[in-house]
C-alpha cells in the first residue's frame, strides 16, 4: 500500500445557479494577462451543450485522454513514436475559433460618438487583432440554451440517442438544462503529464496539484491535446502552456481557491483524500461501466489504523490525516456515494467529483391542473426531463446505476426533510425510501446539513501544507522563505529555452 494525499473537490450541481462568479474570480486573479485572454481556467457550461472549447468531450476529434489498448491504458493521441514524429506539428490542436476569439468593447464610443438620432453603442473589439469583430462564439455560448439548434443539438453526450429522444429533449414544454462548472481535475493519472515531451508538467507530491513548470515548458502543446478536459491552455505571448493551479498560494496559506471562495451557491467543497497509488493501474484496467466503482475503491478510509500507519510512513502527518477524516469530499464520494467523476471513461482518474443534479420532473396537465405527484416512490427520478442515460454518459461511463443511486439518495433525503419540516409525508414511506438506498435517518440528516447549511470550515477542510518540510529539501535558508507561498517566480515566463 502506497498512501498518497490528494486535495480533492466536489461540486454540487443541484446548487449551481450558473452565475459565473467563479469564472470571474479566476479570470481576475490569474488570466487577466496578455496571451491569456481566451483562457478560462474555470468555466461554467450549460448542459446539454457543446461547452468550451466547442465539443471538447468529442475525443474522436480532440484525441484527449487514455484508451484501453492491449490491456493497458494508452494515450489516445498516439504512442511516443508518433508523438515524436509529430513533434513539430501537433495535428490535433484546437483552433482559437474552437475556444472563441476573445473580445472587449470600445467603451469610449459611448462618450465620443458625434451627436445623432440613435444611441451610441460600444463596438466589440477583438483582443487578438484589436479590430472590430462580429462575435460568433464565447466561452459559454450555450448559456441557458442559447443557440441550441446549433450547439446543444450537437452535444457529444447525446450520441446514441434516437430521433424521438432528441425531439423530446428539446421540446419547448419540457426544455431543461443544468450547469456544469469545470476546472482542472488534478487527475491521478493525468494525460497532460504523460504527454509532455519536456517533462515540464508534474503532480505535486504533497497535495497532488498538477502544475506546469514555466521554465521547462517548451511549447510543444502536447498537453493541450492530451488533456481530455481541454484544461491546459497555450499562452501565445509567453510561449508557454498554462493551467489551473488550484490557487496553491492560497491553499498553502489556508484559504480556499478563489473560485471556491467566491461561489455564490456554495456548491464547492474541498478536502483531502487518501488513496492507494499501488492500485492505480488496477483501477484503470476495468471496463467503462466499472470505472466509477474502481475509482472509489482507490480512496482509502482515513479512520483505518492500518491506512494511518502507512500514511505516516509516506510522510503524511497527523494533521493531514485528521483533515482527511473531516474532508467533505470523503463523505460525498466514498461514504455517501453521492458524488461522481466527470467522464471517468477518459481514464485520467479525475479528482473533481460532481453531485448530479435532481432535475425537474416531467409533469402532466390534467383537468387544468399541473400535476407532478406520483404514486410510485422514485418515479420522478426516472421521469426527470433529462434522461438518466444522459447523466450516466457524463458522470459514470454510461453506467446508469451509480447515477440512479445518487439521485435516489438525494430524493430520499428530500423526502425525509419534508416529513421532518412539513410533516405531510408518512414516516413509513420515508423509511422505505431510506432503506432502498441503504441509509439511515441519521445519515440523511448529515447529508442535509452538509448540503444545505455548511459553514465555511465545513466546506473547505484544508490540511496545513507544511511548506517548510518541502522547502527543507530544497534550501537550507528557510528563514528567507518565511511567510511565502509556493516556490515563487524568480522571473516572469519568457519565450524559448
Amino acid at each position, binding site marked *: 500500500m502506497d498512501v498518497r494525499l490528494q486535495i480533492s473537490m466536489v461540486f454540487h450541481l443541484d446548487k449551481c445557479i450558473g452565475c459565473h462568479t467563479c469564472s470571474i474570480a479566476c479570470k481576475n486573479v490569474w488570466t487577466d494577462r496578455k496571451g491569456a485572454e481566451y483562457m478560462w481556467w474555470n468555466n461554467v457550461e450549460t448542459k446539454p451543450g457543446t461547452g468550451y472549447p466547442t465539443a471538447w468531450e468529442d475525443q474522436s476529434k480532440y484525441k484527449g485522454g487514455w484508451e484501453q489498448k492491449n490491456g493497458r491504458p494508452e494515450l489516445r493521441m498516439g504512442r511516443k513514436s508518433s508523438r515524436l514524429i509529430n513533434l513539430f*506539428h501537433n495535428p490535433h490542436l484546437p*483552433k482559437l475559433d474552437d475556444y472563441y476569439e476573445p473580445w472587449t468593447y470600445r467603451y469610449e464610443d459611448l462618450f465620443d460618438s458625434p451627436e445623432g438620432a440613435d444611441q451610441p453603442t460600444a463596438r466589440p473589439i477583438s483582443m487578438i487583432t484589436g479590430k472590430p469583430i462580429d462575435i460568433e462564439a464565447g466561452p459559454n455560448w450555450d448559456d441557458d440554451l442559447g443557440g441550441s439548434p446549433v450547439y446543444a443539438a450537437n452535444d457529444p453526450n447525446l450520441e446514441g440517442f434516437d430521433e424521438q429522444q432528441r425531439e423530446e429533449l428539446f421540446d419547448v414544454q419540457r426544455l431543461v438544462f443544468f450547469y456544469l462548472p469545470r476546472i482542472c481535475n488534478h487527475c491521478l493519472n493525468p494525460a497532460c503529464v504523460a504527454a509532455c515531451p519536456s517533462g515540464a508538467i508534474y503532480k505535486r507530491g504533497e497535495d497532488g496539484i498538477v502544475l506546469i513548470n514555466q521554465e521547462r515548458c517548451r511549447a510543444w502543446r502536447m498537453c493541450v491535446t492530451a488533456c481530455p478536459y481541454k484544461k491546459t491552455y497555450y499562452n501565445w505571448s509567453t510561449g508557454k502552456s498554462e493551467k489551473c493551479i488550484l490557487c496553491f498560494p492560497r491553499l498553502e496559506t489556508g484559504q480556499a481557491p478563489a473560485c471556491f471562495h467566491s461561489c455564490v451557491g456554495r456548491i464547492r467543497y474541498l478536502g483531502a483524500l487518501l488513496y492507494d497509488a499501488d492500485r492505480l493501474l488496477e483501477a484503470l484496467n476495468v471496463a467503462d461501466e466499472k470505472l466509477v466503482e474502481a475509482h472509489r475503491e482507490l480512496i482509502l478510509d482515513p479512520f483505518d489504523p492500518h491506512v494511518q500507519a502507512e500514511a505516516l510512513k509516506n510522510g503524511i502527518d497527523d494533521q493531514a490525516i485528521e483533515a482527511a477524516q473531516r474532508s467533505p469530499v470523503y463523505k460525498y464520494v466514498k461514504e455517501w456515494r453521492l458524488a461522481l467523476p466527470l467522464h471517468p471513461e477518459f481514464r485520467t482518474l479525475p479528482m473533481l467529483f460532481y453531485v448530479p443534479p435532481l432535475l425537474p420532473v416531467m409533469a402532466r396537465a390534467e383537468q387544468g391542473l399541473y400535476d407532478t405527484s406520483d404514486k410510485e416512490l422514485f418515479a420522478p427520478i426516472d421521469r426527470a426531463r433529462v434522461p438518466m442515460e444522459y447523466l450516466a454518459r457524463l458522470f459514470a461511463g454510461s453506467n446508469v446505476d451509480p447515477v440512479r443511486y445518487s439521485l435516489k439518495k438525494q430524493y430520499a433525503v428530500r423526502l425525509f426533510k419534508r416529513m421532518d419540516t412539513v410533516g405531510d409525508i408518512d414516516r413509513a414511506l420515508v423509511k422505505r425510501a431510506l432503506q432502498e438506498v441503504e441509509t439511515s435517518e441519521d445519515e440523511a440528516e448529515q447529508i442535509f446539513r452538509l448540503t444545505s447549511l455548511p459553514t465555511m470550515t465545513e466546506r473547505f477542510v484544508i490540511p496545513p501544507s507544511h511548506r517548510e518540510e518541502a522547502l527543507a529539501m530544497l534550501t537550507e535558508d528557510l528563514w528567507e522563505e518565511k511567510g511565502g507561498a509556493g516556490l515563487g517566480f524568480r522571473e516572469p515566463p519568457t519565450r524559448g529555452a
Partner: protein
Amino acid sequence: MKGISMMSMRSGFIWSVIGLCVGLLIPIEARGQAPSPGATLFEKRCYSCHNIGSGDKKGPDLKGVTLRRSRDWLHEYIKSPAAMNRRGDPEARALFEKFAPEVMPDQDITDEQIDAILALIDELTRKNESFVPAGAKLSRPVTPADIDLGRQLFVGRRSLSNGGPACISCHTVSGVGRLGGGTLGPDLTAVNVKYRDPELIAILQNPNFPAMKAVFGTRPLTDEEIVQLFAYLQNVKPAHPTTQALAGVARIEPWFVTIGFVALLGAIVGFNLAWKNRLRGVREQLVRRSTS
C-alpha cells in the same frame, strides 16, 4: 711592350664582353623580377576587372583615363565609387549604368598607390601600348592530364592545398553535376572566351572581386592548382552553342524550375496526405453543418 699591349687588349676585350653581357643582363633581370610599382599594383588590384588598351572587361578600359578625367575626380572615384554615385555625380552615374550590374567596390588604397597606378596608365597611354601583366604566366606548360586534375579541384573531389573552398560552391560550368554548381558567382562556361589567357591567369592568381577576395585573399591557389584549373576551364564545352553570347551570366535552367515546382507540389500533397486526419477546427464545421 707590344706583347703586353696585346695581352691587355685581349683581356680588355674579354672583360668588356663580360661587362657588356652583365650590363645587358642586369636590366633584363631587373625588368623581369621587379616591374614598376604601378604595374605590380595594377596587376594585383585592378587587372581582374580593368584593361589598359585591350578593351572593356567587367569595368572600362582605362587607357587615356587620365586625359578624360581630372586627377581629383579619379582619386575620389577609386576610393569610393558608390559614394560618388550616391552623391549624384553625372560621370559616376553614367559608369554605373553602363556596367550594371557590376559595382566597383570601395578600395582600401593610399593616395601614393593611386598616383603610381595613374602614372602607369599615363605612360602606357603616351606610348600607345597595352598593359601586359608580368606575372600572369603559368609555372609550366599545360598537359592533357591537367584537365581532369583541374576538374577534380573544381568539383572539390580534391581539396585546395591552402584551404580555399572548391569552385563549385559558388560557380557552375556546363556538365558539372546533375543540378550544376553554385549560383553565387558567375557561370564559368566559356570563361576562356570572355577573358584572354593572361587575364584569366591573373584572376586565378589574384581574384580581386569582393566575394572572392574575402575567401581567397588568405588562401591563395598554388601555382600547380592554377595550371590545372586553367587547363580545365579552357576545356569546358558549352552545352548549348548559344551560351557563348551569355558567357559568365548565371542562368536558371528551365528544367531546374520545373523540378522545383514539381517537388514543392509533391511536398504539399505529401504533407496533406500524411496529416490528412488533422484537426481542422470543430466549431466552424459544426455551425456550417447545422445551418446548411
